[in-house]
C-alpha cells in the first residue's frame, strides 16, 4: 500500500480514534468567520426593529404621548460622541497589539470599556428622567425597546472586552494573533454604527 500514508486506517474504531478527541474543540480557527456571519444576522434584528419603528411612526395619528413635547437631545449627543470615539480608541488598542505592545493594548482596551460604561451610565440617567414609560403608546414602547436592546448589546460588548482583557494576562495567549480581540472589536464597531442610526431615528427625525 505505497500510495497511502503510513498512518492511514479508515477502519479505526471510535475507541481507537478517541485519542484525537482531546483537541476536538478546535479544527482550525474559524471564530472570526463565524462571528462575522453572526453579526450580519444580528443586524437584521435591528433592521426589523428600525422598520417597525418607522412604520408605526409614519402611520401614527398621535405619535408622542400626551404631555410629551419631544426628546431632550443635548446630553444624548454628548454620550454619542463618547461612544463613537471609543471606536477610535479600540482601533488604537488593536494597533498596539499588532506592534506587540501588550500594555498599550491593555490601556486603550480598558479605556474603550470605560467609555462604553460611561455611555450606559448616561443612558440610565436619561431613562430615569423621562416622563413617559414603556407602556406610553407605541412611541414609549419603541423608545425603550430600541434603546434597551442596544444597551444590552453595549453591555455584552463590555463583557466580551473584559474577557479578552483577562485573557491577555495568560502568557503566550496572543502570540499568534488573537481572533477573539478582532471579533470583540468588530462587535464594538457594530454597536457604534447601530447607535448612530438609532440616534438619527430617535433624536434627529422630527416628530
Amino acid at each position: 500500500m505505497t500510495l497511502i500514508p503510513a498512518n492511514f486506517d479508515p477502519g479505526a474504531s471510535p475507541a481507537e480514534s478517541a485519542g484525537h478527541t482531546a483537541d476536538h474543540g478546535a479544527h482550525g480557527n474559524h471564530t472570526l468567520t463565524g462571528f462575522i456571519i453572526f453579526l450580519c444576522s444580528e443586524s437584521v434584528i435591528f433592521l426589523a426593529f428600525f422598520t417597525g419603528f418607522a412604520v408605526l411612526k409614519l402611520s401614527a395619528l398621535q405619535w408622542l404621548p400626551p404631555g410629551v413635547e419631544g426628546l431632550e437631545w443635548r446630553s444624548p449627543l454628548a454620550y454619542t460622541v463618547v461612544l463613537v470615539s471609543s471606536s477610535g480608541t479600540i482601533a488604537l488598542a488593536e494597533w498596539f497589539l499588532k506592534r506587540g505592545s501588550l500594555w498599550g493594548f491593555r490601556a486603550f482596551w480598558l479605556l474603550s470599556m470605560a467609555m462604553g460604561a460611561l455611555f450606559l451610565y448616561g443612558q440610565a440617567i436619561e431613562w430615569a428622567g423621562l416622563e413617559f414609560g414603556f407602556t406610553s403608546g407605541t412611541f414609549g414602547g419603541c423608545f425603550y425597546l430600541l434603546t434597551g436592546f442596544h444597551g444590552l448589546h453595549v453591555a455584552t460588548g463590555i463583557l466580551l472586552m473584559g474577557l479578552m482583557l483577562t485573557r491577555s494576562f495568560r502568557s503566550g495567549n496572543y502570540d499568534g494573533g488573537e481572533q477573539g480581540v478582532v471579533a470583540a472589536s468588530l462587535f464594538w464597531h457594530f454597536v457604534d454604527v447601530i447607535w448612530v442610526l438609532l440616534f438619527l431615528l430617535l433624536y434627529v427625525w422630527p416628530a
Partner: protein
Amino acid sequence: MTITPFDPGLSEVPQRQPEAPNGWKRYISFNTDAKVIGIQYIATALLFLLVGGLLAMIMRGELITPAADLVDRTVYNGLYTMHGTIMLFLFMFPVLNGLNNLLIPVMIGAPDMAFPRLNAAAFWMVPVFGVILMASFLVPGGPPASGWWSYPPVSLQNPLGHLINGEALWIVAVALSGVSSIMGAVNFVTTILRMRAPGMTLMRMPIFCWTALSAQTIQLIGLPALTGGAVMLLFDLVAGTSFYRPEGGGDPVLYQHFFWFYSHPAVYVIILPVFGVFSELFPVYARKPLFGYKFVAAASLVIVGLSLVVWVHHMFPSGVPQWMRDLFMVTTMLIAVPTGIKVFAWLGTLWGGKLRLNTPMLFALGGLFNFVFAGVTGIMLATVPVDIHVNNTYFVVGHFHYVIYGAATMGVYAAIYHWFPKFTGRMYYEGLGKLHFLLTFIGTNLNFFPMHPLGLMGMPRRVSSYDPEFAFWNVIASLGAFLLGVSIIPFLLNLVSSLVRGERAPANPWNAIGLEWLLPSPPPTENFEANVPTVISGPYGYGTGLPLVEHQEAYERALQQA
C-alpha cells in the same frame, strides 16, 4: 495491519476516553461529535413527529363527522395550533438539522463541524423549548389557540390574566427555537465555507451542501426578523405595550409582515435540503450524472434571493395596498422558474437511466410527484384573485401539506433510508421499507388531495364542525390520515429491528460516488482524520469512469480490507 495479542501491561492498548463514551449513553449526553448530534436531532424530531401526528389524528377524528362531537371547540383550537407548531419547529427543522449534521462534514471531508460545542448547545435547546411548548398543555387556560402564526389581536387575548399562559410559552419556545437555529446556521455556513477537503471547490460540492448553504443563509437573514417580531408580541402580551394593539395606536398587520418575512422563506429552508436529497439520490439510482449541475446549484441561490421578497402573498386579504399585491404576485410566480429548472434537471437525470426502485428511490420519486402537484396549486395560490377566493380555506391547507408532508417529509424518509447503512452500519429491511412507502404515498394523497375540492367548495380551515355537504371528502381525508398514522408503524419497526439485528452494511452499499462512501460504515469519529482525500473531479461521475479523488483505488482497497 497486524493483530497484537492482548497484553494488559501494554501501554498502547486503546483506552476509552471519558469525552467519547461508547454505546447508547453518548446519545443522551452533551456530545460534540456531529454524527452523534445528527442522530440526537433525528431521534428527537421523530419523537415529536409522533406527538404532532397524534394531534392531527385527533383532529381528523373530530372532522370525520360534520358536528363538533369529539372534542370541545376551544380544545380543537389548541390542537391545530400545537400541531402546526410542533411539526415545523420540533419535527421539520430538527430533522433537517440532523441530516445537515450527519451529511455536511462527511460530504465535504471535514472532521467535524466548525464549532462543535456551539453545535451541541444548539441541539440541546431543542428538548428545552420542546418541554416549554408541551408545558402549555398543563398551564391554566391550556395551550395556545391562535393558530401557528399567532396573529394579534387574537393571540393577545389572555382572559385568565396569568403571566404564564399558553401563548406566552409559545412565544418563548419559538424565540428559543430561533436562537438555536441561528446558532446552527452560523455553524453550518462556516463549516461549508471553510472546511472543505482540498480540491473541493464550490462547483465540485455535492448539491446537498449547496442547498444546505442556501437554506441556512435564509435562516440567518429571516429568523432575526421573526425573533424581533416575537419579542414585541411578548411585550404586548405580558408587559402592556401596544406595538400591535390597535387601541393603543399599534398595528396588527406589522406583526404579519414580521411573521411572514421569515415564515415564508422558512418553507424554502425546509424544501431546499429536500431538493438536495433528490439531487443526491436520482443520480445514484439512475446511474447517470446529475443533469445540469451548475444550473441546479445556481437555482438554489436564486431561490434564496427570491424567497426574501415574496412574503406579502400570505397577506393579500390583510388590507395591503394594491401595488404590493401586484408586486408580490409577480415575485411569487418567479419562484417557479428556479424551481422548474430543478424539476427539469431531475427529469433529465432520470430520463433514459437504469432506475433501481429501492425504498429511498421510491420515496424520492413519490416526493417529486407530490412536489410537482404542490407546485401547480402554488402557482394557483400566487394569483391574487384565486388567493382571495380560497383564502383561509382547506385549499391552502391541502397545498402546504403536499409540500411539507408529500414532498419534504417523504424526501426526509428517502434520506433516512439512503444514508441509514452509512451512519448505523446496518442495512434496513427492504420489504418493510417498501410497505412504509406504499402506505405513506397512498395515505398522503388520500389525506391531502380531498382538501383541494373542499377548499374550492368553500370549507374554511380551523373549524371543528362543518356543513354536511362537505362530509364526503372529509371522511376520505380522515381515512387517509389514519392510514398515515399506520404507515409510521413499519417505519419504526424497520428502524429498531435493523439497528438491533440488521445485516452488517458494507462501506458503499449503493455503489454511490461521494466522499462519504469512501468512509467505513459507520465512519470513525473524525471521519478521514489525517487522510483527507484530494478531490479531483466534480460529483456524480456515474458512467464517466472518472475517479472522484486522488488515489481512489487505495481508499477503496483499504475499505475492503477493513
